């Protein structure tokens, strides 16, 4: 009976998308202002001795209420691997492990976290998380998969933002409206300003954040279907904005009023209209040029853009009508002017004239948002069923009505210009019900493998409700009060005893009550992501190149891996072999052709914001580990490293190999079986290895090949790919 009532209640509440409960006047949970809830009292907790910070109080409360036993703290070895992979996406070296294991001081753990947060590699790891949300890719997808030569500047901007602990509200503002919020970055023309101040340079950097909008999926099959292209661009911008920053899936409201959440089709097109006055453009980057180059390049790049704009204005004026001979001539003039402006681009840098360069390709620019010319702004219409050929009313830039009401704000936004600015400021207001909750939940998700809300891009009625609503609100209010500092949030989470629990724990009762571990009675074991696995293999081999930033790198592929690529020039291997072992985040992300190893290990679909990566376990992953030539090559490098670091003694070599790959020495049983395996392999002794790295050349051939194969086995262990 009780179940039936509940069932009906849920069914009804799902069917009626109301922002506010009519009886109580209350908004749907995610639209209510987060409350600073007091953590449950220590004295009320059975396991109060486990409490390190308020997170534990919230989590233990629910756990104890459900009659669950918390897992004991994980071993220190487990903890250091967990922390390294979590914060850096890299394994600790055996020496780093030793340092931590022998550090008996009280604050060894918090100091470890601090040191990892100070590492430049932290930004690469956590920036990559954000890139999933930002549907990051270096190309447009669809048939032509056009290359975005500047997408990487946005990637580096994200990495730097995390490394600099940029307050998250600023991070959001920069991405949505960096140009409108700090308009002095528009004023860089050396004919008008003599010196670019430090502040202005910072604002210019911030504007690269709007690259968020310039790297979405895009059909670039000439200008065949311009109307549809424009519509689909706005659709991408509106949908990604809602998913990434607001944790809302508004996409369904494109075709009809949202069935489950309080959003109408009108709200949806008003959101699209916020972006109607924006356009993508190439911004010459003062910061990446010397001053001499800036003086030389900037006006000429702007001249190209102005020439192009003149042509677009002319086209808009003609509205596709047949041209008179005079108009034909005018059009020819305008096209010639573009050509001339391009030809005027410098062909050598002013700073170092000996370096030849192609002005068009090499002038550093970033793809960013700017203002569309007033005459070229196209009105946004509400579309019947979302169909382009059924335009209805003109849509004005506005906040979604239910959200405006929930935040007690007027829904109107200025237009043209200024709507993005106002929208970004509203979104990052300190009482905004979504922005803080959504990012706090994402960060929790990235730490634990599951969010407090399991659907980080859907805080609506069809998303999962929070497992620990009080905790989410407490964390959110703390986070905002602390100035939106992400690194402090990491500290708070990782210093809790919840985070430090063992994953190797599974009493019958806990499993029976909460098999999914929603109540966090143990740590979730996690398969490391594709990029981390790549980094782990190369770190173990000692070949990883930790250089940061810059254009995407393109590692070589085997014939069977490249076979399915249509245009081989879409995968032009980086000329410098040192680039082939860069960290995974720097590998070219093509929408139409994923790096094959990444595809097998579940890097996200880049067509839309990805809140949660799939974690599949499939046979092609095993085939990669066993048979891929690049993995075997890394195994040989690792064998060379082992011999170099451990000397000729076989036992010492095995121990070293274990410590490099798994962070721990082998057990007696493992030592014995590894010895036996080496015996067998040394005796099988086939033809000598091909492509032997230098480090293995002086080793006895039988040992070199046996040890390489042992290292290959280590790369294939579950323990290598899973973090406890």
């Amino acid at each position, binding site marked *: 009976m009780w179940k039936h009532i509940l069932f009906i209640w849920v069914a009804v509440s799902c069917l009626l998308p109301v922002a506010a409960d009519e009886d109580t006047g209350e908004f749907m949970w995610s639209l209510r202002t987060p409350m600073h809830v007091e953590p449950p009292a220590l004295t009320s907790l059975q396991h109060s001795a486990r409490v390190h910070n308020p997170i534990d109080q919230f989590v233990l409360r629910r756990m104890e209420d459900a009659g669950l036993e918390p897992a004991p703290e994980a071993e220190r070895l487990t903890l250091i691997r967990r922390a390294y992979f979590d914060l850096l996406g890299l394994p600790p070296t055996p020496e780093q492990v030793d340092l931590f294991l022998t550090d008996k001081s009280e604050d060894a753990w918090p100091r470890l976290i601090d040191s990892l947060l100070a590492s430049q590699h932290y930004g690469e790891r956590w920036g990559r998380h954000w890139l999933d949300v930002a549907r990051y890719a270096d190309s447009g997808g669809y048939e032509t998969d056009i290359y975005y030569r500047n997408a990487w500047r946005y990637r580096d901007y994200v990495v730097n933002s995390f490394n600099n602990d940029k307050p998250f509200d600023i991070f959001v503002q920069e991405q949505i409206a960096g140009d409108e919020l700090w308009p002095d970055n528009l004023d860089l023309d050396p004919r008008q300003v003599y010196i670019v101040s430090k502040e202005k340079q910072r604002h210019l950097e911030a504007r690269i954040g709007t690259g968020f909008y310039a790297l979405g999926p895009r059909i670039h*099959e000439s200008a065949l279907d311009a109307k549809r292209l424009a519509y689909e661009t706005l659709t991408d911008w509106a949908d990604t904005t809602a998913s990434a920053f607001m944790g809302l899936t508004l996409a369904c409201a494109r075709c009809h009023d949202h069935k489950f959440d309080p959003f109408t089709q009108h709200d949806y097109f008003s959101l699209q209209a916020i972006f109607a006055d924006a356009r993508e453009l190439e911004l010459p980057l003062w910061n990446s040029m010397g001053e001499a180059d800036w003086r030389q390049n900037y006006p000429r790049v702007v001249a190209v853009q102005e020439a192009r704009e003149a042509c677009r204005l002319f086209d808009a004026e003609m509205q596709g009508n047949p041209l008179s001979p005079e108009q034909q001539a005018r059009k020819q003039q305008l096209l010639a002017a573009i050509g001339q402006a391009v030809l005027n681009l410098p062909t050598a840098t002013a700073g170092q004239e000996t370096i030849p360069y192609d002005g068009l390709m090499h002038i550093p620019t970033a793809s960013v948002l700017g203002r569309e010319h007033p005459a070229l702004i196209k009105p946004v219409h509400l579309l019947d069923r979302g169909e382009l050929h059924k335009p209805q009313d003109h849509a004005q830039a506005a906040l979604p009505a239910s959200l405006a009401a929930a935040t007690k704000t007027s829904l109107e936004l200025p237009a043209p210009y200024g709507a993005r600015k106002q929208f970004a400021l509203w979104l990052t207001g300190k009482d905004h019900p979504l922005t803080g909750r959504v990012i706090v939940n994402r960060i929790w998700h990235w730490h634990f493998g599951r969010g407090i809300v399991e659907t980080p891009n859907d805080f609506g009625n069809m998303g999962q409700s929070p497992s620990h609503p009080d905790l989410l609100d407490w964390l959110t209010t703390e986070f905002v009060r602390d100035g939106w500092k992400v690194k402090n949030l990491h500290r708070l989470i990782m210093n809790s005893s919840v985070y430090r629990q063992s994953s190797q724990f599974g009493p019958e009762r806990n499993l029976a009550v909460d098999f999914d571990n929603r109540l966090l009675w143990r740590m979730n074991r996690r398969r490391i992501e594709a990029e981390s696995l790549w980094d782990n293999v190369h770190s173990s081999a000692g070949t990883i190149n930790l250089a940061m930033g810059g254009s995407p790198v393109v590692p070589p592929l085997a014939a069977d891996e490249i*076979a399915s*690529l249509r245009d081989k020039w879409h995968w032009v291997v980086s000329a410098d072999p040192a680039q082939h072992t860069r960290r995974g985040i720097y590998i070219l992300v093509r929408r139409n052709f994923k790096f094959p190893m990444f595809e097998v290990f579940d890097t996200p679909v880049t067509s*839309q914001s990805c809140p949660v990566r799939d*974690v599949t376990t*499939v046979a092609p992953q095993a085939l990669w580990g066993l048979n891929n030539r690049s993995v075997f090559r890394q195994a040989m490098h690792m064998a060379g490293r082992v011999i170099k670091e451990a000397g000729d003694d076989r036992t010492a070599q095995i121990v070293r190999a274990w410590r490099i790959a798994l962070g721990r020495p082998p057990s007696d049983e493992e030592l014995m079986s590894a010895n036996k395996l080496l015996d067998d392999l040394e005796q099988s002794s086939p033809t000598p290895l091909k492509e032997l790295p230098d480090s293995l050349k002086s080793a006895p051939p039988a040992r070199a090949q046996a040890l390489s194969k042992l290292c290959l086995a280590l790369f294939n262990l*579950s323990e290598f790919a899973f973090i406890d």
Partner: protein
Amino acid sequence: MTIFPNRRDFVLHGGSGFGALALGDLLTAESRGAEKRSRNPLAPRPPHFPGTAKNVIFLFMQGGPSHLETFDHKPALRKYDGQLLPESLRDFDLAQINTADAKVMAPQFSFRKYGDSGQEISSLFPRLSEHADRLTIIRSMYHDLFIHGSAMILMHSGTRLLGHPSVGAWVTYGLGCESDNLPSYIAMTDSVFRNGASMYTSGFLPAVYQGTAMRAEGVPIQNLQRDADLTGGEQRLLLDQINAWNRNHRETRPADSRLDARISNYELAFRMQTAAPELIDLSGETQATRELYGVDDGPSAQFGKMCLMSRRMVERGVRYVQLISSDWDAHGDCKGNHEVQARKIDQPIAGLITDLKQRGLLDSTLLVWIGEFGRTPIRQGSNGRDHHPYGFSAWMAGGGISGGTTIGSTDDFGFNAVEDKVHVNDLHATMLGLLGIDHAELSYYFEGRDHRLTDVGGMNNLAARLVRS
């Protein structure tokens, strides 16, 4: 195959295969685990109702074959050759030419009626015509995308946008996998995949449902070949040791099925190293069979091999086979292009139908032939035709359908589908229907709503009409 995705994702997404979780399940997150615990996302699942087909071979003609040169005979085009289209057809968007000023072009091939059913087919397909009584020709396909990229995505995933699962992924999601050694969904092309993996993607479905791109030559699946520096014996030695260590690792880690799945995947990978090359190895096929598919005849050799391999896949339990014949994009010379193209596929496809029939597999194997669109009735350049999505043709055979029938028609100019119109969503609904799947029920919750292969369409589901009574 014993493959598990992250169990949590699986539970979260309602891996039951069909439809959303019951609302009751959503109530208490804590209780959900127990019920779904043991399910393998690729385990074979019963259909919604008994279907007539068990397997699908999807023959995709990439580039857009002309309906007017193949299956849709329009004598009016001869009559009006060189003239403008009627006024009513002059305001349609096309990719490269203009309906307002391009001139009608007569069909480039003659048509004849074949078989007892008298199906009209052009002279391009002499072999296939012999099966006229087995074909159901749809002359009223339509949609509104005239660019290859988005039209191909529509044809494969039911929507024009990237990121949605392909038909084969939906079918695998719905019915599971029947082979122990091979993937359930295999895609092959005679060239390369335009649009990349979006032609066989699992989109927002868990990645276990992704198609496997298999090659007809050399190493059929990525990383399938043992490294040259490793002997077979050594690989086995390594594998046994890896498994032993992984089992020890597993023992101290309770309740984590991914670790079991990982161990069994290493064995599956080992078996695939034998099974996949065996699949594409045609040396065991008789000379008669090779001739049937035109495997040794220059123009048809490549597609012939692919068709023969697809029969071998169906025999081995592969659920969904997708074969792509590329280069049908006849902007310049429709006649010349289609002559070359038809020679590549006519014998192979006819041979496939014959072979499936004589092995008793045709009744359970559905063949679907289609391009991303047809071609314009009006001329492009000297002798070409532009992309045309507003009316074009497809055919189906096998899979329990009666054949010898025609569905729908276009107007006199072959421009618009006018009668019994079949949208891509309708075609997909029909395919699912023949497999025993209700297209409106097969759904997956993602980004705020339940998605279907057929989106909000699929109303004109032909399945019931096509099945032999």
